[in-house]
């Protein structure tokens, strides 16, 4: 076993060495790179209506969803156009914060403080005990307070970047795409775990987490008018047998989300999949780690994403050159 590990390590290292040229430092080292640099700058400097508008789609995934912070960070630093955002569950929280104009730095701060902030209390302690003993769904006061503190009072129409988030009608199973009205209510409904948190009453409907019906809301971004979709999908790993009610419930939601996301991913133009499979939905002590993993994965893929966007955009932008 040890030998196998050593040989794998060696193979990995040798592969790394052979790829080391790909990780070159100077970003304008050859003709293609120079061409890409100038063409990219030209295309993204155009107004959104003259090029393919870009929709960023952020999946659900609880604590894993903080990987979106890293993805958004890299997109921003590489001047990737972010014309609209859609999100489900944690993707709705991160997307909502970003669309409201909150800087990535501040979202990173939430990631590093997630465990010490009270948000994680909704997933453990007395509230959870209440769920098991009284057989009564929890009203997650800390999550609600977090959403209200940071997004309360804002409306979709006031956002800096057009935004949509998804939840599900618990009675009909319909997918509800929010693009108007109060932002905090929509985000709160999108991050409302079924089977654990009380459904949210809204216009004669009872809303729960959108992850059950649309884990990777590509359609919501298209609904906003996005012509080119980049999805950030935080996939789960369900190889571990759950040992209690809570983890069983989360695993069912994860599996369902994975199946749904596979279909949505096919309708995306580019997908970034941060390697956060080892982080569980309620691992709020690992949010910052998830963010870093998102950042590293996005950095690895950013060049490919840029080239794909340029290639897809070219027939449309040609007449404006």
């Amino acid at each position, binding site marked *: 076993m040890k030998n196998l590990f050593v040989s794998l*390590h*060696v193979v990995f*290292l*040798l592969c*790394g*060495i052979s*790829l*080391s040229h*790909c*990780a070159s*430092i*100077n*970003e*304008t080292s050859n*003709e*293609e790179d*120079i*061409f*890409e*640099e*100038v*063409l990219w*700058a*030209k295309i993204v*400097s155009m107004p959104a209506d003259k090029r393919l508008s870009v929709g960023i789609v952020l999946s659900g995934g609880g604590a894993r969803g903080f990987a979106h912070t*890293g993805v958004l*960070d*890299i997109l921003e*630093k*590489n*001047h990737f156009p972010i014309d609209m955002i859609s999100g489900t569950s944690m993707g709705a929280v991160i997307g909502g914060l970003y669309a409201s104009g909150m800087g990535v730095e501040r979202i990173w701060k939430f990631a590093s403080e997630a465990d010490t902030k009270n948000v994680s209390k909704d997933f453990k302690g007395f509230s959870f005990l209440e769920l098991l003993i009284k057989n009564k769904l929890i009203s997650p006061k800390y999550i609600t307070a977090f959403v209200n503190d940071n997004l309360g009072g804002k409306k979709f129409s006031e956002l800096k970047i057009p935004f949509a988030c998804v939840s599900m009608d618990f009675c009909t199973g319909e997918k509800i795409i929010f693009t108007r009205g109060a932002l905090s209510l929509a985000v709160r409904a999108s991050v409302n775990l079924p089977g654990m948190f009380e459904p949210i009453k809204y216009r004669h409907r009872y809303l729960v987490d959108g992850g059950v019906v649309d884990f990777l809301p590509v359609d919501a971004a298209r609904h906003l008018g996005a012509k080119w979709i980049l999805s950030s999908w935080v996939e789960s790993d369900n190889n571990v047998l759950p040992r209690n009610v809570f983890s069983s419930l989360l695993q069912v939601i994860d599996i369902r989300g994975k199946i749904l996301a596979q279909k949505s991913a096919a309708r995306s133009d580019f997908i970034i999949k941060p390697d956060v499979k080892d982080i569980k939905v309620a691992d709020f002590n690992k949010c910052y780690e998830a963010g870093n993993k998102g*950042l*590293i994965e*996005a*950095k690895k893929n950013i060049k490919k994403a840029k*080239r794909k966007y*340029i*290639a897809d955009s*070219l*027939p449309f932008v*040609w007449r404006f*050159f």
Partner: protein
Amino acid sequence: MKKRHGIFLAFLLLPSFSAAFPLFYSSRKQALYKSKIAEIEKNFASSECEKVKSNVNNYFNLKPPSEFRKKAYLYLGRCYEKMGYSDKALSVYKIAAALYPHEKEFHKKLADMYFDAGFFKKSSEIYLRLIQEYTCGWEITMKLALCYLNLGFYKKAEKRLSQAAELNGYKDRDLLKNYVQCLINLGKYGKALNIANKMGPPDKYVSLARVYIHKGDFRSALEEVEKGEKQFPHKKDLLLYEMLLNFFNEKYYKAYAKAGNFLEKYPFSEAAMTIKIWSGYKIGRKREAQQTFLLLQKKGKGWLKRLSERLNLQER
């Protein structure tokens, strides 16, 4: 009487001999180790890596004490590197770094190996520890910055690049190029222009142009490139940027001519072929553009070939 005295004296001196013997013996051994190391050093200097390998093995069989093994590890590791056995070199440096936790050289070598293999997270951790524990020059600070740059930690990279540039006195061109790139990523265009201005020509013109390009100011970018091209008419980078910037400043005739000139020097340049095709279409020289397109299809291999394929379909 004399004989008795001699025996008595020998008896008296015996303890001193027995104490001196190990010293004598150990100094003999030390001399042996030194000669062996000198031999290994000589093998290494004359690039006889196979000899280094066997001599190091034989040397280790003598079981020299720890302080006499250091150099042997270093030469062995460097030889494996020279021979292209990166995995073996890495193993040697790993062992050496564990045996000599305070030897900077082994940790630096280990970090460099990880860096070259693209394991930037691992190498950044070692470089950071080295910087924190020792007085390091600008090179290690720059390497740490490059790790951060490759990982996407632009703010951390900026801090280290700034330190490295200070330590280096703003002289190293690669360092300054990367610093400018980092500042572009962070959208700090003013600062990026300042750093670019500290560079010597012709890099200065390319870097200034790049900052303007990312700012969306294609006219200023072209001005910088043209200034550079006057002084360095054969610099490939400058010629490429000039050709592209002429096209994107809608100077299609000039772009067409520049692409033609470039192709005379570099007949298989896919970038120049692409610009010739694109500007040819814009100025109505579709037949020539088609010919260049066919040439690109035949000779091209990369992304630019596919890019023109997409466009050409629409233009037919």
